[in-house]
């Protein structure tokens, strides 16, 4: 699939121009804008509002494929309406780690049982990414085998070479869009500059994580290490809600004679997450719930889907109120075990 990547050069600001073109064609364009002290994805109607001066946005882009509140069915005496959303959307300016996270969400929602709501949104969404020419202090995608110029999960990847943009077209959907623009051939110098930028971005990454922890995790489930690590944790849901790959949800009904059944983001850090109907709660203590998060990301998903469910965006580290750090926890476990 990746042999088909075509590269070309665009003179100008591709992301702004493609936003304009897609708005004309009736797409809902979602792009990063500055809001207060941070950047966030929003549906825009004016391409001038797009701001690309960031390492990464505060929230990930998963809320456009898997919203925090999604109506499933509306009911009166019986099911009135199944609320599938097939609007055409384009997510522009997404970073490679978040786009890779979307492919991980595809593993959950599209393999095996196909989730019709996710499928309707995913089929009608175009993803145009923006490569990282510098990495932040919280980024660690390269330790997980990803690159700041990764193309997986995108239709088009845009790299900023200064006065021009280097475009990589990955899918047929991307091809159609490129057809609307005038593009040039890639010269050797362009290729060299792009590789230089990629190399510099990878080398500037200061944070590292040991990701192949399967055996260590299996053998240390009952270790006291997890109680120590959880001393600080306050048990909120910040890490799970900002994480681009966390996908747990709860389903609730609201309304009596007529109402709506909707699903909402849930967090494994909330105590009610594993409360069973018999009133038994297998993860009653906070340290058990914190331990579950690391195990789910680095062991359980590896066992069931073959992939580590972490893309190295670092949001859980920068926004954790208590200072729980996924890289320090995993590296610390390895150190503790080897002592």
């Amino acid at each position, binding site marked *: 699939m990746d042999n088909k990547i075509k590269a070309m050069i665009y003179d100008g600001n591709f992301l702004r121009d493609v936003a304009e073109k897609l708005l004309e064609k009736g797409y809902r364009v979602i792009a990063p804008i500055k809001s207060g002290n941070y950047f966030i994805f929003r549906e825009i109607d004016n391409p001038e509002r797009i701001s690309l001066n960031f390492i990464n946005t505060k929230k990930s882009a998963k809320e456009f494929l898997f919203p925090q509140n999604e109506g499933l069915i509306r009911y009166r005496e019986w099911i009135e309406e199944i609320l599938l959303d097939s609007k055409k959307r384009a997510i522009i300016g997404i970073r490679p780690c978040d786009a890779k996270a979307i492919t991980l969400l595809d593993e959950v929602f599209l393999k095996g049982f196909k989730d019709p709501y996710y499928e309707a949104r995913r089929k009608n969404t175009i993803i145009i990414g923006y490569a990282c020419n510098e990495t932040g202090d919280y980024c660690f995608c390269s330790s997980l085998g990803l690159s700041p110029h990764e193309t997986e999960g995108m239709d088009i990847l845009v790299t900023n070479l200064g006065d021009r943009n280097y475009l990589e077209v990955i899918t047929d959907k991307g091809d159609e869009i490129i057809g609307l623009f005038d593009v040039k051939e890639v010269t050797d110098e362009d290729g060299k500059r792009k590789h230089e930028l990629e190399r510099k971005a990878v080398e500037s990454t200061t944070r590292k994580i040991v990701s192949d922890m399967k055996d260590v995790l299996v053998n240390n489930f009952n270790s006291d290490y997890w109680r120590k690590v959880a001393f600080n944790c306050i048990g*909120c*849901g910040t890490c799970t809600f900002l994480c681009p790959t966390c996908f747990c949800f709860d389903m609730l009904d609201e309304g009596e004679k007529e109402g709506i059944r909707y699903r909402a983001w849930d967090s494994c850090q909330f105590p009610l997450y594993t409360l069973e109907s018999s*009133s038994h709660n297998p993860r009653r203590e906070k340290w058990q719930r914190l331990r579950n998060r690391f195990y789910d990301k680095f062991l359980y998903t590896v066992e069931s889907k073959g992939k580590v469910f972490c893309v190295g965006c670092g949001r859980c580290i920068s926004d954790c109120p208590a200072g729980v750090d996924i890289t*320090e926890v995993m590296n610390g476990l390895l150190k503790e075990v080897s002592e």
Partner: protein
Amino acid sequence: MDENTLKKLKEKCREMLKEDVEVIIVYTRKESEPKEILTVIESPDEIEKITLSPLSANNPAKHLIHELKNRSGKIGVVAKGCDSRAIKQLINEGKIDRERVHIIGISCPGIIDYRKLITKFKPSEVKKVTLSGDTVLVQTVNDEQRIPLDKLIYENCLYCTHPTPQEYDSLLGEVREGRRDFSDIEELEKMSQEERWNYWIGELEKCIRCFACRNACPFCYCTECLVDPTDLAISPMSPAEEKASYPRFLGKTVNAQDNLFYHLLRVIHHAGRCVGCGECERACPMDIPLRKLERKLEKEVIEVFGYIPDGDVPFLARLDILPEKETTSGR
């Protein structure tokens, strides 16, 4: 918060561990960045881990309750002015046993907003942050920079009423005066009703209902929270109808009105109890100005009821307090 205080703190901790204290809750530095977190030390060889700097932001009160439950001996804790007030209020509410706690009070000049710091420096390049008088000394890998404290201080610390702890067993640092200042609340009150509504809806639209504010607050300890019950009172014998019809004031819908419901309710429960530690605003990942709501409540409790939140009897239980004068909005 300077080098001198840190040295004295380390000595004090060494003394305490030799005497009667089982563990001490102290601040320590994270490995990968200069942020400080709380940790527990049990033996004198962990003394070197202790740090104390203008980045020591976390409030140890909730962790203290947790440790008191899990251990049987005496527990020491390093507490700034606001932390000490929180511990005192928790003692009044019966959550902490005063006999089992040894409080090392630190007189605090104000805490640095970490998010402001990392707009000026790259975290991995900062080696050390210390305070010298009113200046913050930031030592990076290249050089040392001096920044006045009020360029980096938390907005909440500007309105601190008790920088020097009032409940302590030992006190370090020079005594400071606090002040009560509601000028920013008064600014907001001057806006028209529509402007105020638009301001709050705009801010609360950002909320993702992660409950970091509730979990970080020392006084949100109800196990059956009104909006998100953490400990439903069901048993294996509860019938299905009871479980299905459990009252739910708020579901998981996340929109500006429901977020308003949650935040307003949370703040009302802190009438007369909030000590102003600012953990709620610091914990919020979306930078919502939660302290403004709490301080408005504090202002009303003081101005309408004449009650200064320092007493031993909880505000709501004081029967001699009824509104002394007309409410500030004349209702």
